[in-house]
């Protein structure tokens, strides 16, 4: 896929499903887990709730199906739904669904390290963080980047000096959280806060998630024809 910075794409993005965020709607996120989750999933959900302001945790009941939770989330006016997937006591994926009829993305989660285990980590505060999105160049990258953008409140609180970074490199998205301090006009000091993890996009569906939905982009191993070809 290719780089682009042209009018047709801008117009298309101007009224796609994520446009309501850009016209002022504050994000309201609900985080939940897969069924029968264990303590690891709940700890990660705590971390996610701390990263995104306006996020809440909701416990996944044993009989709550995907369609029902999407419906309930839309009913309660949430803008995003994040589902943390766990398999045999290890976290493995996040499904991010933008509501009410936005795109759904499934990311593979790896290398999760909670804040406590990072040496020299700092303490988080409740200020709205700033957001950095790096290297989301292709059209698919634009869509995913906008989905992440729609998770954060539009106006950051600069006095908090916190920043959340989504850095895309070779189709892996690195999520980090830092506190910065300007020592003088040229030097910045960074202290890592909170959790760090890596995401890799597996598929993107248009519309909210449905087992029979149409996939706008799906990763298949046969696509990996060359080591230099990336999609995001």
């Amino acid at each position, binding site marked *: *896929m*290719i780089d*682009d910075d*042209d009018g*047709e*794409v801008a*117009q*298309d993005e101007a*009224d796609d499903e994520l446009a309501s965020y850009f016209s002022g709607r504050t994000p309201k996120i609900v985080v939940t887990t897969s069924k029968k989750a264990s303590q690891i999933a709940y700890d990660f959900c705590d971390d996610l709730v701390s990263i995104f302001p306006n996020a809440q945790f909701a416990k996944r009941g044993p009989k709550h199906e995907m369609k029902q939770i999407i419906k309930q989330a839309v009913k309660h006016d949430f803008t995003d739904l994040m589902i943390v997937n766990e398999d045999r006591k290890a976290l493995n994926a996040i499904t991010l669904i933008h509501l009410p009829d936005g795109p759904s993305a499934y990311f593979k989660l790896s290398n999760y390290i909670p804040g406590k285990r990072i040496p020299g980590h700092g303490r988080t505060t409740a200020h709205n963080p700033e957001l950095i999105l790096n290297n989301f160049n292709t*059209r*698919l990258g634009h869509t995913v980047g906008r989905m992440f953008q729609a998770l954060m409140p539009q106006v950051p609180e600069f006095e908090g000096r916190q920043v959340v970074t989504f850095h895309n490199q070779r189709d892996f998205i690195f999520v980090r959280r830092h506190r910065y301090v300007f020592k003088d006009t040229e030097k910045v000091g960074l202290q890592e806060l909170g959790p760090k993890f890596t995401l890799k996009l597996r598929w993107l569906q*248009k519309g909210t998630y449905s087992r*029979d*939905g*149409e*996939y*706008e*982009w*799906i*990763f*298949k191993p*046969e*696509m990996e024809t060359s080591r230099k070809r990336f*999609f995001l």
Partner: protein
Amino acid sequence: MRIITGDETGLVKSVVFPPKVEEPKRRSKKVKQDQEGEDEKKKNEPTMILNKFGVIDKNEGVQKLCWGELNGKRHIVVARKSGKIQYLDVETGHIEREYRDENVNKESHFVGLHATEKYLITCTTSGHLSYTLLSSYNPKDTNNKTTCISSTLGPDLYVMRVHPARPHLFATGGKENDLKVYDANLLMKEKEEEKKKALVFQAKNVKNDMLDLRVKVWIHDLHFLNEEGTRIVTATHYHQVRVYETKKQRRPVSDFDVGKNPLLTLHIGVDFDHVIYTDTMSTVATVDLRRGTVGSHYKGFTGSVSDVFVTPQPSFNDDDDNKKMTKPFLTSVSLDRFLRVHEMSTQFRRIEQKVYLKQRMTAVLVDETFEFPKDEGKEQEDQEENEMWDAMETVADSDKSKSKRKRA
């Protein structure tokens, strides 16, 4: 070959690919190429021509595309999300005619579009069928409505297809709405008894499955397979491909299970015994209807394929010469914003062309008769060169005797 695509933002794009120039294979070692020479070569090579018609407006998203004739000339017929049906000129994209179908709104979109010389035939999900006489168009009226002849074709229709050789015969299918074949001539009659006869064929559901439960019905696409309109193939949401023989029995003659994902579209392949299906997970493959086997997967797709066009289209009369002349191609358009052309002549099914078209496309049409405009200047040069070579004297064999003398 010219390709017309329609996308969900309402743009109609026309793409023409230049014929590929075959370079002779270099057997010698790689020679360092003159960089300037290469750049010049690239400029002189013919590039793809892309024309864009229309403005971006999500409410005018293209839902269906088909070929139509107006005044003897072929036009593109576009059915849009807002209910507008437009006849566009192929070269300029100018709107020659516009109709409006009032039955199309948020809940009810177009499921079938067909244009013959006399009629424009459309159908919506709510079951409103319109056969509009093309001659009754009023150019001064800004709102030319389509004439609805029936509104009871059933709720939740997903596909309506008109038989290519018999425009009065059409079939419909949808969610919990099994295959039905109608005769439009009888539908247009006034009397109720004659209207009831319009339903020529109604399919019966297959037998209950092994748990004695009713098998669900959800038809996504269907096609007519023979000239009389008695052989029909359908593709369902539950990944089944079924063939019906209307003269023989109401239940399907064959029922094949294909893949694991809902089938989205169905298209006739190289001949009427092969159909190409697409599903939600970027699979495009061929089903052999005689045996029920799935094969010939077309690779390279990263998103689900929304529409496919096979050229040449097999016709009911045996056009053997025609078929041998044109190479078979599969043109496809998908949600990952790419237009791809696969070649169908060899077993490798390679991608011939691939173009990024920036929008999620929903429909594709191919004009096989279009030929890439040849560079006239270059042709003249070639002619002159040939003439020059012909005019020069050929070096005769008499030189051999001279060289022999020298050696001696």
